[in-house]
């Protein structure tokens, strides 16, 4: 979709921002350019919509050199969101969103319908349509910025630290919303940030960059965490690489162990056998239809397993949770396992530390 071919960018003052860069950004993916400030990531992004022009090499968009298209036409097909947002102070939220469709000469009705659709898509209440930027909250302004970038349905979206200026809670929400939005719109998104955690959360692929505009490693978040290409990448990833990887892998990716599970009211001998087979000194107690009741020490079982005396698993995990949540669950119980459930409390098995280790090593 977007291809950098031996691109070099030197500013008039002699600063080398990007040197001999080759990079292919696939269609429909979020590619995060991440690196310390001054590494050339923003310049790299701006080469796509000609807000910066290469000194050497070329940038191809869907096979066409971006310099073969007049800049203003090229840019109407590329959404652009920056940290300061740059909303037009003299135009209402709705008018800001309508900018590119109006420049492109859409009929009035179509513009209005599109604005309504976008406001719903990014979660802006209808009453904000007529408000001017200074009357909106920081989060709302950012949503208007995203809606404005999406207005003419461009196949490509460039985002430069778009969530850098909002507080951490709102930032987390906006990140989640971007991922949800991407499920619906499937854009090719180039996202620039200096925050490695944001990169790991959002990126289908991450390019870790160092000055001047050099890509040290380009791969999926999980692969980069598992095998950093060099010391620079390792250092940039920071501490707790294992935990960061666990956060990226869903529970569904690991096959749960059936675990030492026995039905409520089972004879003591069954509990002993199940525990021995699993190498534990406790068993999971299940009610009818695999309902999770809790767990008991085998030593405490008298004649029969008593579900009413079972201890609860305080934290349980589901298929869509991360392995990091599973690890958290393991640390919260004496059994040392995470129980996986579905529905209300249907038992699906247990995850052990060994299973996690297998997954990430």
């Amino acid at each position: 979709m977007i291809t950098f071919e031996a691109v070099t960018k030197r500013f008039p003052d002699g600063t080398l921002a990007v040197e001999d860069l080759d990079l292919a950004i696939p269609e429909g993916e979020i590619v995060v350019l991440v690196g310390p400030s001054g590494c050339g990531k923003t310049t790299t992004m701006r080469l796509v919509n000609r807000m910066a022009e290469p000194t050497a090499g070329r940038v191809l968009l869907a096979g066409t050199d971006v310099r073969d298209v007049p800049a203003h036409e090229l840019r109407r097909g590329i959404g652009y969101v920056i940290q300061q947002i740059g909303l037009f102070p003299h135009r209402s939220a709705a008018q800001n969103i309508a900018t590119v469709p109006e420049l492109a000469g859409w009929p009035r009705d179509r513009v209005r319908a599109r604005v309504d659709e976008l406001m719903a898509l990014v979660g802006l209440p209808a009453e904000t349509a007529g408000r001017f930027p200074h009357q909106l909250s920081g989060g709302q302004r950012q949503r208007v910025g995203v809606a404005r970038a999406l207005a003419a349905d461009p196949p490509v979206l460039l985002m430069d630290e778009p969530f850098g200026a909002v507080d951490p809670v709102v930032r987390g929400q906006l990140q989640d919303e971007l991922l949800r939005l991407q499920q619906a719109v499937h854009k090719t998104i180039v996202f620039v940030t200096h925050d490695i955690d944001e990169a790991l959360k959002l990126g289908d692929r991450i390019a870790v960059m160092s000055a001047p505009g050099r890509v040290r490693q380009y791969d999926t978040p999980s692969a980069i965490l598992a095998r950093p290409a060099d010391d620079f990448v390792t250092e940039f990833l920071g501490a707790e690489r294992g935990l960061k990887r666990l956060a990226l892998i869903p529970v569904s990716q690991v096959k749960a162990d059936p675990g030492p599970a026995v039905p409520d009211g089972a004879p003591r001998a069954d509990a002993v056998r199940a525990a021995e087979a699993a190498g534990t000194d406790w068993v999971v107690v299940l009610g009818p239809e695999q309902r999770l009741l809790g767990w008991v020490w085998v030593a405490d079982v008298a004649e029969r397993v008593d579900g009413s005396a079972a201890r609860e698993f305080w934290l349980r995990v589901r298929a869509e949770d991360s392995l990091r949540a599973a690890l958290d669950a393991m640390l919260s119980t004496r059994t040392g396992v995470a129980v996986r459930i579905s529905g209300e409390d249907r038992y699906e098995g247990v995850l052990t530390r060994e299973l996690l280790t297998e997954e990430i090593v």
Partner: protein
Amino acid sequence: MTAVARRFPDWDWLASHGGEVAAQLSEHVELTALAVAAGFLVAVPLALLARRVPPLRGPLLGFTGVLYTVPALALFVLLLPFVGLSRANPVIGLTIYSLLILLRNTLVGLEGVPAEVRESALAMGHTRRQLLWRVEVPVALPAIVAGVRLATVSTVGLVTITALIGYGGLGQLILRGFNRTNATQLVAGLVLSVALAAVADVALAWAQRRLTPWQESRTA
């Protein structure tokens, strides 16, 4: 001098000279409007030129600044060899005085458009011309209108000086009232010119709010 001339307020004089007062008031408004309009038509292109060719910014502001420092009476006299005592004399002189205020405010307004607003406008595909007319000028409008307001009020005051070369609107009333020790005539000129400045100021402030409803209300 008769005692009649010294009576104050002289309602009889006012009643018999109502037409003259109205004519001078309308002359005053006309001169002001012409001068500010002409100043605006010169200042805006100059401001756009200074934006396009940055090295011209300093010289343009400097030149209009020097013009502004020429004493008013001297300027009108200096214009005599060129335009004589025609109406062009006061209009050109007053225009010259409005230039600095209008140019500086227009420039400040255009330069005050936040960089990120300009950046995002370009990145969304505005051409240079669209950037100027759809974004920069509207965003600069509060400063531009503020300039018009300031220039108008200051021109209302300056118009009175042109009484010395035979124009002056309400300035004529002041000058004649002074010469004939007709206090009523003098005070009528004074009160009306001050009132005119105040009315113009309030009207333009109202226009400013109407033109830029998007502005954050500021206390300053």
